C-alpha cells in the first residue's frame, strides 16, 4: 500500500502544486493533464480539498455581499455639500 502511495505521489501533483492549480482553475480551464492531476489529488487529499472549497466559498460570499451592499451606500451629507459647492463654483467660472 505504501509503495502504491509513493508511486501515486510521483505521478500526481504535490499539495504545493495543487494549491497553484486550484487557484489557476478558478480563472481558466486547465489543460487536461493538469486538470486530471488536480482532480485525482483532490479526491485523495482532504486538506487540499478543504483549501479548494474554502477559496471557492470566499469568492461566493464576497461576490454576493459586494453586490448587495452597493445599493445601500450613501454619500455623507458633508461630502454632498462639499461636492455641490465646488461644483457650483466651477460652474460659475467663465
Amino acid at each position: 500500500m505504501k509503495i502504491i502511495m509513493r508511486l501515486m505521489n510521483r505521478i500526481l501533483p504535490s499539495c504545493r502544486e495543487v494549491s497553484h492549480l486550484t487557484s489557476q482553475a478558478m480563472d481558466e480551464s486547465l489543460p487536461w493533464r493538469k486538470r486530471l492531476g488536480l482532480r485525482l489529488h483532490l479526491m485523495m487529499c482532504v486538506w487540499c480539498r478543504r483549501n479548494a472549497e474554502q477559496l471557492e466559498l470566499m469568492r461566493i460570499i464576497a461576490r454576493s455581499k459586494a453586490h448587495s451592499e452597493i445599493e445601500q451606500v450613501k454619500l455623507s451629507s458633508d461630502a454632498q455639500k462639499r461636492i455641490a459647492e465646488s461644483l457650483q463654483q466651477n460652474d460659475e467660472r467663465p
Partner: protein
Amino acid sequence: MTDGIVPEDSSKPSSLSDSKDWVDKHGDALYGYALKYINDRQAAEDMVQETLFAALKGRASFSGASSERTWLIGILKNKVIDHYRKAGRETRMIDPEQFSDSDETDYISTGPDAGSWQPERRPVAWSVDPNDPVEKQQFWEHLQKCLEELDARLARVYRLRDIEEIEYQKVCNILSVTPTNLRVMLHRARKLLRRCLEINWMEV
C-alpha cells in the same frame, strides 16, 4: 459636435438637468459605483467630484441618446479605469518574484513528503453556512479586514477578480500585467486571505 444628430437646441440639450441637482439626484449612485471599485471612501468621494466636473465641462457632448445617469456613470467608469491604469503602472514595476511564493512555510521542502502540507499549516475545517445571513455577514466582515491587511497590490488584484468578477484578461489589461504575473499574484492573494480568515474565523 461630430454627431450627425443634433438636438434642437444644440447649445443645451433639453434632457440634461440643472447641474445644481446632480449631486442630489446622482451622488449616491455614483458614489456607490466608485466605492465598489476603489474601496476607499475619500478616494471614491473625490472621484464623484471629478466625474461631475468632467460632466460639467463636457455638457455639450451629451447626445441625449442615454439617460443622464447612464451618461454620468460612463464618465465615472473612465475615471475608474484611469485610476487603475495609474495603479497598474506601479504594479508593473514590481518584481513578480516578490510574490512567487514563500511556499516553504506551508509545505515540506525536502524528503519523501516534499510538497505536502506542513502539519501545522493543513487547512482546518470551517463551519460557515453561506445560507445563514448572520454568519455570512460576519464572514464578509472578516474577509474585508483581512483585505485591508493585505499588500495593497494583492488586495487590488483580489478585488477586481474575485469580488468584482472582472474577466481575467480584462484585469491584466487594466493593471498592465502579464497573465502569468496575475496568476502568481492571485494565488498569493487567495492563499494569504484564506490563511488570515482561518486564523481570525476560528477564533470567533
